[in-house]
């Protein structure tokens, strides 16, 4: 695998690469047609910036407006190595923390670049009018977030993703108004067009009229977000899906580390089998909330009746130096262990307490309201309980996917001309993402990386002129059309959701917080059967030429079924534990993840070999020249 990682001292690599890259003449830029699929932080920022540079851009999203991309839901904040707090932060420290936090499964060069760019993102967002929190003197405020020992997280109340996305969206709307971006909302990409080995376009379905179209271009950028919804229940928006990335995989783009999933420790527990999604309670709550379970098993008393001495503040006990702020994977697994021991709380026993009693006493209710009022309200709206009075109940939930389409240092996939940004790619976070780093990565990719690397690709690769009539484009369109018709013609006995729920349960039980080889391979086989049943027995009503939400869902679930199988295979193949990937066979005596750097210090990149052949594994060896691999310790 050629990752095109530049040589030289790490702090010079991006600068040197930028200098060596070819440029496109300003007057020529408008002759290039670029497709940006996705309008979240990654896609929105990329589309706006490329249009500002003069490229001719088309941008697509499945929601009714680019402003509604799933990035809108991010709450806690965005990291940047500004060191405004003078507390010892630096680009190097952010780099170090990210490589270590990712449990040594990310590419050092990418992570360093991300840390370098982080500072520009904040400047850019401030200039756009993103209303970050401020100190009384008017300077930017920071907080420390999920596992960081410095305060480097910038935030806009509990709505950081919303405000950053609106900044990018407004920049995008400005370009749309100026005629430099043509926006296609309620439009879903259903296939990638590859001609002469290069990405040259996409096939889309208009979600209102059902019309299927070909869009030809000089390069295609996917910024289509994560695939956590393969688990059915996750904190992702209902529409989040893998279809764009999966179609690219089936057209030759390798899929990187599919099994690397992040399970977030602080979500509201499941309340019933009608449950449609899980709600995240921002991790920032762990700054002041204390996590505990009763010391006694099966203790069903109300939390108020359990005395201090009968409570086990297990994170503070096991990890005295990080306490409640240990990284997400560590916190999630610890919660699972407590519940497995029979000490979980709430009606299902699948929950732990997040208690603000001590913080309210120490800081006063007023300060707690200022910090978390909106989150407390949200919790109360959903559960009917007030966290001011009773401790919150939380449980881990699928939240983020570190895996995704494999990309090189230029963010280009193994299909030349296909670039992948944001959560949709596999880069930067290794086996575990630190809090407040996804927003940073999405915006780094879109505002500051792709504008350079795309130009270099276009300037170094003369492309033949093609039209929609090209046989490969027409063939892709026919395939999409047939698939839509097939889904509508099965007329079976089960709803799309029932398949999705069953898949989700298999994934959660066998490819979730704790995995083992036998169960993973069993699950892979069961998913394959479920997929076969889907194509025989799903019932999708309505028409193709219409707004048809069941049809949309059916296409996405069909792709999740295939992805789920690959995730299990990838997880079974990685005989080690690292970050969010915990294999029961590979743990330390204290139950911590046990990496195997000798055999598994690589990124797994899977190549599609046909529906009836196993995917082929390629390995991108990872080199750690700066941050020496060590067993992560948060004790």
């Amino acid at each position: 695998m050629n990752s095109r990682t530049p040589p030289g001292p790490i702090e010079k690599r991006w600068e040197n690469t930028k200098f060596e890259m070819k440029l496109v003449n300003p007057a020529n830029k408008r002759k290039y047609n670029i497709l940006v699929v996705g309008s979240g932080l990654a896609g929105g920022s990329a589309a706006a910036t490329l249009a500002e540079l003069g490229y001719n851009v088309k941008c697509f999203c499945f929601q009714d407006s680019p402003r509604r991309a799933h990035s809108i839901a991010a709450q806690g904040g965005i990291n940047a190595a500004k060191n405004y707090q003078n507390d010892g932060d630096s680009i190097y420290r952010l780099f170090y923390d990210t490589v270590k936090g990712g449990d040594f499964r990310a590419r050092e060069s990418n992570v360093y670049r991300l840390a370098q760019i982080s500072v520009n993102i904040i400047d850019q967002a401030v200039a756009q009018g993103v209303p970050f929190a401020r100190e009384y003197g008017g300077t930017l405020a920071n907080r420390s977030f999920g596992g960081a020992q410095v305060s480097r997280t910038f935030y806009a109340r509990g709505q950081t993703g919303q405000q950053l996305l609106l900044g990018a969206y407004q920049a995008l709307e400005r370009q749309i108004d100026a005629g430099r971006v043509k926006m296609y909302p309620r439009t879903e990409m259903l296939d990638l067009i590859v001609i002469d080995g290069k990405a040259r376009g996409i096939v889309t379905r208009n979600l209102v009229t059902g019309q299927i179209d070909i869009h030809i271009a000089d390069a295609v950028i996917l910024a289509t977000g994560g695939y956590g919804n393969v688990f059915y229940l996750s904190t992702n928006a209902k529409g989040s899906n893998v279809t764009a990335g999966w179609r690219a995989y089936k057209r030759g783009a390798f899929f990187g580390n599919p099994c690397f999933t992040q399970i977030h420790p602080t979500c509201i527990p499941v309340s019933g089998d009608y449950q449609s999604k899980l709600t995240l309670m921002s991790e920032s709550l762990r700054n002041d909330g204390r996590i505990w379970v009763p010391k006694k098993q099966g203790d069903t008393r109300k939390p108020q009746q359990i005395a201090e001495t009968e409570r086990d503040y297990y994170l503070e006990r096991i990890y005295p130096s990080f306490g409640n702020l240990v990284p997400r994977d560590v916190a999630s697994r610890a919660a699972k262990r407590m519940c497995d021991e029979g000490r979980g709380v709430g009606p299902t026993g699948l929950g732990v307490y997040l208690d603000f009693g001590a913080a309210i006493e120490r800081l006063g209710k007023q300060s707690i309201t200022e910090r978390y009022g909106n989150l407390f309200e949200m919790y109360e709206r959903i559960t009917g309980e007030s966290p001011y009075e009773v401790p919150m109940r939380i449980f881990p939930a699928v939240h983020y996917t570190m895996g995704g389409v494999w990309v090189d240092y230029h963010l280009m996939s193994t299909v030349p001309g296909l670039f992948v940004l944001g959560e949709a790619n596999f880069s930067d976070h290794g086996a575990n993402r630190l809090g407040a780093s996804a927003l940073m990565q999405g915006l780094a990719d879109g505002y500051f990386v792709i504008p350079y690397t795309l130009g270099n690709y276009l300037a170094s690769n003369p492309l033949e002129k093609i039209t929609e009539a090209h046989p490969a484009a027409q063939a892709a369109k026919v395939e999409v059309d047939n698939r839509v018709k097939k889904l509508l013609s099965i007329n079976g006995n089960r709803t799309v959701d029932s398949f999705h729920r069953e898949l989700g349960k298999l994934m959660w039980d066998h490819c979730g917080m704790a995995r083992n080889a036998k169960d993973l391979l069993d699950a892979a086989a069961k998913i394959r059967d479920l997929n076969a049943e889907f194509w025989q027995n799903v019932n999708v009503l309505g028409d193709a030429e219409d707004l048809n939400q069941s049809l949309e869902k059916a296409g996405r679930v069909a792709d999740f079924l295939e992805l789920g199988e690959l995730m299990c295979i990838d997880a079974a193949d990685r005989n080690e534990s690292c970050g969010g990937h915990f294999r029961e066979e590979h743990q330390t005596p204290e139950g911590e993840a046990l990496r195997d750097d000798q055999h598994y210090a690589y990124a797994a990149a899977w190549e599609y070999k046909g529906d009836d052949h196993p995917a082929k594994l390629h390995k991108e060896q990872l080199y750690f020249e700066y941050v020496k691999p060590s067993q992560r310790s948060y004790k």
Partner: protein
Amino acid sequence: MRLTLNIWRQKSPVDKGRMVPYTLDNVSEHMSFLEMLDVLNEQLITKGEEPIAFDHDCREGICGSCGFVINGVAHGPRRGTTVCQLHMRSFNDNDELFLEPWRAAAFPVLKDLIVNRSSFDRIIGAGGYISAPTGSAPDGNAILVPKPESDMAMSAAGCIGCGACVAACPNASAALFTSAKIAHLGLLPQGQPERHSRALHMVAQAHEEGFGNCTNIGECEAVCPKGIQLENIARMNRDFLTGAVLYRDPQAEAGAG
């Protein structure tokens, strides 16, 4: 609990549409309103009937996708709450509910409870931004923003663009939506250079889209799930009037050299 639901069914933008009654049993108080509709939809599909179409995505009250009128009130009975965050504990056994899409000329119905809100995007495109091309920004702390202004800007910026304000307004005015963006950007130092042209262009676009005038009725504020306040409209009017006096079209800039 058991519910009677009268739901607006409309196959397409050209279809006339009508209310259709459904009954649903065993509704749990812990379900969200949309989960209740999911259950109804699963039952409909099993019976071979097309499910009810409604917009939704985050189900966390932040993306602004969801929204319809429940018994005459946009987003239903609970103040400050989108329908996706509304839970069935707000209702009682044997309640009869009427669900209708947003009604406004500028929000044509696409199907059932789904409307087309792209007019909102065009209002933003007309001026709801600060022109700050990527790479042109000074250091973040070079621009000091007093905390009170920053907090007020943030409150206005919390608008999720759901459209409830329009649906609730007897004039179908988009004043609350438009003014929230004008206030957010106009309160910040970064927003000053374009403050007046922004107000002029956004207000003009809202008119062009067919939204009505604001006559200070205040229904919008009452239904807004994010607590966006009427005072934003006063700010908008001030910026608009000042803009009308001060605004000049840009001059040509070419020059030899």
